[in-house]
């Protein structure tokens, strides 16, 4: 029994963003009693500050804004008595012993709360990489924001972060913020990207940069930040063979810098309980049931790997919740699984195990930008299936289904390895 709630939970879900909400709704549909813990005042996570549209096309067959998308799930959760929601509540630790796990929560309303359940679902999402992580040289004035923080300041708090911005990195959030900054009357003097191609979707390049005549500097690096109290400008240099060409460096005046240089799954809690982390995703290794290396602890959404679309997060989280329900009701040892690995030209594959008896949906991220690529699935070094893909790039996740037919030649066991590669 849980202190103060009197409920015996089947699952405690950490984080009430897109992943946590979808997992909770599906848990309730499967007849599980669960608790969602979120540190913010509302459910919905980052969705509430994403006021642009383009969400929900896969989930709801219509185009929604972030808050509208969140609202649908919040409504679903509100209608289900099986889901308890703890807001303003921060999970500070997990005791991952079996059979009952204890989730330690600090809250102004409940004090120190301990929620117990046989299963825990990690849905903490991700954080933005910041200036320190990329080691940008220069001074440390005010006016440097991650794109997400600027998005929050504008869309929720109603502030103008600055009058003239340079955006480092062409990730989607940065592109969206280039447009948003323009719409609040600020100037965007340029977007820099160290890669020779944009990191964000082509649609955003045309709608957020080209439509506003914002220059995009591909293969350019910000080599310095100037300004004493507030940002005064940046120095930008073209990259030649991976090195900054200082001879051709130039300055851009600005009072604001927004960083859109990647996202990192927030796995500090996971690491503390000994969850093994995949260095390529920065998320946990999970088996074909989305279970981490710690029994009874599952992960889905951006805490597992960074997704392109919130719709895919919701879908993955439902699949994860299905596995949690199966885990809680099944008797006897689980059937064995084989291993999935990323092969040539693939950054990572999720999940890291496959089923022998049923379909395993695999997601992977390409290393390369290329047209007419051959995707090949091999079992223990032998190609079992190939498929032609029209175009791949790192910013777009690819999905493929591993079927029992693909692996029927193998004797079940954990010694078999399936490799996903692109050629």
């Amino acid at each position, binding site marked *: 029994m849980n202190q103060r709630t009197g409920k015996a939970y089947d699952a405690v879900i950490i984080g009430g963003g897109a992943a946590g909400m979808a997992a909770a709704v599906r848990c309730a549909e499967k007849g599980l009693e669960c608790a969602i813990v979120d540190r913010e005042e509302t459910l919905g996570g980052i969705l509430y500050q994403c006021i642009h549209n383009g969400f929900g*096309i896969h989930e709801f067959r219509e185009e929604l804004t972030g808050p509208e998308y969140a609202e649908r799930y919040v409504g679903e959760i509100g209608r289900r008595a099986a889901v308890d929601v703890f807001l303003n509540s921060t999970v500070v630790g997990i005791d991952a012993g079996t059979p009952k796990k204890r989730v330690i929560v600090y809250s*102004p309303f409940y004090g120190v709360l301990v929620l117990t359940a046989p299963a825990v679902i990690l849905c903490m999402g991700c954080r933005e990489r*910041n200036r320190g992580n990329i080691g940008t040289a220069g001074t440390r*004035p005010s006016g440097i924001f991650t794109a997400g*923080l600027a998005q929050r300041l504008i869309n929720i708090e109603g502030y103008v972060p600055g009058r003239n911005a340079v955006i480092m990195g062409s990730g989607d959030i940065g592109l969206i913020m280039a447009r948003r900054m323009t719409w609040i009357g600020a100037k965007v003097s340029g977007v820099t990207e160290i890669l020779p191609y944009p990191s964000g979707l082509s649609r955003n390049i045309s709608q957020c940069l080209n439509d506003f005549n914002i220059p995009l500097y591909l293969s350019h690096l910000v080599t310095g930040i100037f300004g004493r109290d507030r940002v005064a400008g940046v120095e930008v240099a073209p990259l030649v063979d991976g090195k900054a060409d200082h001879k051709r460096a130039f300055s851009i005046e600005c009072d604001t810098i927004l960083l859109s240089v990647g996202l990192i799954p927030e796995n500090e809690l996971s690491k503390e309980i000994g969850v093994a982390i995949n260095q390529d995703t920065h998320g946990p290794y999970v088996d074909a049931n989305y279970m981490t290396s710690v029994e009874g602890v599952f992960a889905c959404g951006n805490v597992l790997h960074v997704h392109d679309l919130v719709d895919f997060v919701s879908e993955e989280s439902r699949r994860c919740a299905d596995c949690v329900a199966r885990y809680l009701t099944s008797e006897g040892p689980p059937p064995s699984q084989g291993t999935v690995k990323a092969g040539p030209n693939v950054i990572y594959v999720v999940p890291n195990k496959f089923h022998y008896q049923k379909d395993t949906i695999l997601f992977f991220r390409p290393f390369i930008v290329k047209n007419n690529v051959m995707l090949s699935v091999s079992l223990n070094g032998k190609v079992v299936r190939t498929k032609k893909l029209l175009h791949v790039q790192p910013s777009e996740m690819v999905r493929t289904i591993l079927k029992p037919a693909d692996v029927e030649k193998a004797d079940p066991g954990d010694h078999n390895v399936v490799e996903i590669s692109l050629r």
Partner: protein
Amino acid sequence: MSIPLYDIVIIGAGVSGSAIARKLSEYRLDVAVLEKHVDVSFGVSKANSGIIHAGFHHKPGALKTTLETRGNRMFDELHRELNFPFKRIGIIVCAFSYEEMKVINVLHEQGIKNGVEGIVICNRDKIHELEPGLNRDVIGGLYAPSGGIIEPYQFVFSLMESARKNGVDLHTDFNVERAEYSAGVYTLYSTYNEKVRSRYVINAAGLHADDVSRILHADDFKIIPRKGEEYILERNAKGFPRQVIFPVPRSNSKGILIIPTVYGTMMIGPTAEDINDKEDYSTTYKNLEEVFSEARRMVDAISKKEIITSFAGLRPTLKGNDFYIDLSKKAPNVIQVAGIQSPGLTASPAIALYVTGLLEDRGLRLVKKRRFDPVIGKPHRIRDSGAEEITKLIEKDPSYGHVVCRCECVSEAEVVEAIRKGHTTLDGIKFYTRAGMGRCQGGFCTYKIMKILMRETGTGADELTKRGGMSFLIQGHISTDGWYPEKNASQQPEKAENHEPADR
């Protein structure tokens, strides 16, 4: 408006000025500290490496050597009274060659002469046993168990809090622009023409000690800023050491060090280069490379991937590299406390004693207060508290249960306490509470802290700063400031026909 008249005014609220202020607050004296920044410790001390040196680096006989060794011994008592984070974890100097072992011998001898306790020379086995992460080609070195680590700004904050508790006045945002002397009294004018009068003036102005000396018509000397860049690595970073690790020192610095911080992050640095500009706090790619290659020479596991932030600090150095602490030869009743570079932090409590002695020599009567209270309360930190303690705290004040900074586990109540103690900038709150010092570097907590600041101080969002001056966080409000784009961005993109997915 009468102008306040003090017995002693200290210019500069860095570690030297704050330590002197606290020492003087034991006596029946009217003391004030003038600080040009909005908060104490925002000058040189802000970027200190936070090492309590053992006392073997400098030659016997130099003023800094005497004060360093004396200062080191004073930290246990200060720690008990002031509750700043402090650990005596020991210092290791590693040698890679027999040539370097000769230097180790010299350092050992110096240490013995300077009275450093427990200092020993280590052979290969001993040094690797003490510090398992060291590279195998370290052949031996020095071990000084009395070395330690502190959080430098928290040390300065607690010194100043203690001084103020015992009656010292602190004037922040007071940049001394000019001074007059007549009939035994100095009148000091700020940039905004505020005035303070005092019989004695102590110049602890760090990088600007030479400028202040000129303003006081005192001695002529030149402070040369020596820049040092430091890099902070995440908690649980690979290669986290047990002791502070030093290489064999060079002519102008102690070299690039590997420093475990009290809170479990790791600091590597600092570089050392003499510059001209007292305001140049920029870091460079070149030095990043240097710092990492030097650090990895000692501990191979250290990785650039784990950097969470970097910063630069400026050491106020004088020709000859010793401290200059003395009565002015030219201006009456002025005491110079200049050139306080490394090991200034370690020496600071001893500097305060030394300055007190100089005042006494000058004829100032020092009478102990009957009511001096050396202790300041330990701030509640949920990061360091157990469940029972936190339950009690939340019952008393629910905002202890509201975690504002997830990375460093800082509650709203702690942020409020920082603000009530006078830390009203983003950086001040960061240094007092650690909110914003973690892996996300304020990405998640900045707006929350802004809201708490506005609520607690009644200031508007556009008045909030990172560290005072013109370092405003935002540049206005949407739609309320009547500020519109020059270009009309009316070309709303057509709705995408092929329903391409949105981002994230």
